[in-house]
C-alpha cells in the first residue's frame, strides 16, 4: 500500500480506534490498549534508528527515562502542565541525544551497540545518585494532574479514556513520522547506511548527519513516550524507566514485529502486550523469558518480523493474482 491509499486507510483506522472508548467500558481492556500504544510508539522510535538505519541501540531506555524525568521535574518543580511538559520532555531527549550521537556514531556495528549499553547504564547510575535533581532511588510520585477543560467538559483523569486517546495520538504521531521518513530521501539514505555505510559515504551521503538526525527523531519519540508514562503510571524511579529491560523490550518489539517497517512495531507491541499479560498471569515474574524465546525464534525463522514476512507474502499473492488476471497473448 503506498501513497494516498495508505494515508486514507491510516486515518480511518485512527478514527475507528478513537471511537473505541465510547463503546468499550472495560477498564482493563482500555489499559491494555494504552500499553500497546505506548509500546508501539517506543517500538517505532527504536525502529527508526535500528530498523531503517541499522544502528542497533541497547540503550534507548535512557531517552525514554530522560523524557519521563524531564516531564516529571517540569511538572513537580516548575508546575508546567503535562501538555507542554511532554513535548518538552521529547525535545530534551532529542537535544541530549545529539552530542551523544555525534560521539557514539563514530563507532560502527556492535561497538556502537555496546557503547549505547554503557551510556544507558551510566545514565541510570547518574539518576540513582544525583539526588538533588532526580530524587535518587525514591523517584517521583505524581499525585494529581492539573484540571483541563476541553469542549466545556472537565477532563476526568481517573478514567482511562483520556489516556487512551492521548496514547493513540502519540502512536499516530510516531507511525506518521515513520511513514513520512520511509518515503523521504533521508529514509532512503538511512537504508543505504544500513546496507553499506562506506558505500553510502562514497556516493555523497553525509552519514553522520543522517544518523544524528535520525537519533534525534528517535529520541524525541522516546522522550514523549517517557513523559506519557510518567503521567499515566504516576510514579517513576530509575529502575522503572531506565532499566535495561526496557531497552531490550523496544528491540524485541521492532525485531519481532518487523525491522524497518512502519506497521511492524505495532504488531510487535500487540504481540508483546498480549504475551506479556498471559505470562504475567500464569507466572508472575520472568515474563521476559518469552521475549527472549520469541526474539530468537524470530531471528532464526522470521528475520523480517511478523509483519515484514506478512507483507512479503501479501506482495507475492497479489503478484500471482495479477498474473492470473492479465490476459495471455
Amino acid at each position, binding site marked *: 500500500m503506498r501513497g494516498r491509499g495508505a494515508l486514507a486507510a491510516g486515518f480511518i483506522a485512527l478514527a475507528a480506534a478513537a471511537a473505541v472508548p465510547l463503546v468499550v467500558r472495560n477498564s482493563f481492556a482500555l489499559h491494555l490498549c494504552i500499553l500497546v500504544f505506548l509500546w508501539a510508539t517506543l517500538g517505532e522510535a527504536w525502529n527508526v534508528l535500528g530498523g531503517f538505519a541499522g544502528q542497533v541501540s541497547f540503550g534507548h531506555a535512557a531517552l525514554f527515562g530522560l523524557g519521563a524525568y524531564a516531564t516529571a521535574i517540569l511538572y513537580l518543580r516548575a508546575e508546567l502542565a503535562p501538555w507542554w511538559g511532554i513535548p518538552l520532555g521529547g525535545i530534551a531527549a532529542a537535544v541530549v541525544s545529539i552530542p551523544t550521537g555525534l560521539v557514539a556514531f563514530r563507532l560502527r556495528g556492535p561497538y556502537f551497540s555496546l557503547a549505547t549499553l554503557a551510556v544507558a547504564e551510566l545514565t541510570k547510575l547518574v539518576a540513582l545518585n544525583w539526588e538533588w535533581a532526580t530524587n535518587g532511588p525514591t523517584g517521583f510520585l505524581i499525585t494529581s494532574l492539573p484540571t483541563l477543560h476541553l469542549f466545556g467538559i472537565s477532563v476526568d483523569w481517573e478514567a482511562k479514556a483520556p489516556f487512551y486517546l492521548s496514547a493513540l495520538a502519540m502512536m499516530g504521531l510516531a507511525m506518521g513520522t515513520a511513514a513520512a521518513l520511509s518515503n523521504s*530521501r533521508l529514509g*532512503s*539514505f538511512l*537504508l*543505504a547506511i544500513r*546496507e*553499506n555505510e*562506506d*558505500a*553510502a*559515504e*562514497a*556516493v*555523497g*551521503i*553525509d*552519514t*553522520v548527519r543522517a544518523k544524528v538526525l535520525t537519533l534525534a527523531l528517535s529520541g524525541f519519540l522516546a522522550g514523549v513516550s517517557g513523559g506519557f508514562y510518567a503521567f499515566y503510571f504516576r510514579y517513576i524511579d530509575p529502575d522503572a524507566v531506565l532499566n535495561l529491560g526496557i531497552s531490550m523490550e523496544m528491540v524485541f518489539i521492532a525485531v519481532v514485529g518487523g525491522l524497518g517497517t512502519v506497521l511492524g512495531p505495532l504488531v510487535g507491541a500487540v504481540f508483546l502486550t498480549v504475551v506479556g499479560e498471559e505470562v504475567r498471569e500464569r507466572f508472575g515474574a520472568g515474563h521476559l523469558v518469552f521475549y527472549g524465546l520469541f526474539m530468537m525464534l524470530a531471528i532464526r525463522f522470521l528475520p523480517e518480523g511478523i509483519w515484514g514476512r506478512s507483507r512479503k507474502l501479501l506482495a507475492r499473492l497479489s503478484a500471482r493474482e495479477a498474473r492470473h488476471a492479465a490476459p495471455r497473448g
Partner: protein
Amino acid sequence: MPLLEVRGLTRFFGGLRAVGNLTFSVEEGEIVGLIGPNGAGKTTVFNLVTGFVRPSSGDVRLGGESIAGKKPHAIARKGIARTFQIVKPFPHLSVKENVTLAAFLRHRARADAEAAALALLERLGLGGRAGKLAVELTLMEQKRLEMARALATGPKVLLLDEPMGGLNPSEVGLASELVESIRRGGVTVVLVEHVMKAIMRISDRVLVLHHGERIAEGAPAEVVKDPAVVQAYFGHGVA
C-alpha cells in the same frame, strides 16, 4: 592547472609508512594507471584522496582547491568518485535503487534521480537487471553496478580500484572499453590495476608505486622497461 594534484602526501599507520611524500598530478581527460607490487600503498592513496583516511601530512587538491582531510561525502560532492577493490553494493536494495541513491547527489527529486539512474544503467549494460537485488548479480555485473553508482554522482574524477580483478580475459576487454568510453564522456580516470594488459592498453600514463613512494612515471611502454620497476616486482637477481 592539473585537475587532481597530490603533493607530499604521507600516511603513517603506527610505525608503518604506507604512503611517503607522494607527489603527482592528473590532467583533465587523462587515464592514469597506478601500479605497483602488493602492499605498495595504492589503495591507501585512493583512501587518502577520497577522504576515507586522513593524511599524516601533505595535500590533495581538486581543481586547485584543497580537499585533504575532508569527509568522503564532501569529497564526493566536490566531484571525486571511486569504486572499491572488493565491491560494496547495497546488497538488499535493487540495482536501480543502488544507483538512484548516488544520483540524489545531483538530482533533488526522486523522479529525476531515478531517470538518471536508469539511463546510466542502460549505458553500462545493466538496464535489464534494474529490478534485481544487488546480491543477485554476478561479479562482473556488480563491478559494473559499482561503476554506474560512481558515475551517477556526476564526478570529474573517477578512481577505479582494481576494476578488472576476478574477470576473465574477454570480460577484461569489455571492461577496458567501458573505461575508455567513460573518458570519452568527459570523466578523468585514475585506475589501480594488476592486469597489465588492461593498463598497457588504456592508460595515457602510468605511475609506479613501491613501499608507498613513486619510483617511476611515464608512458606505459617505457615504465615497464624501467629497471627500478622490474626490480620492485621481481626482486634482485633478474637480468
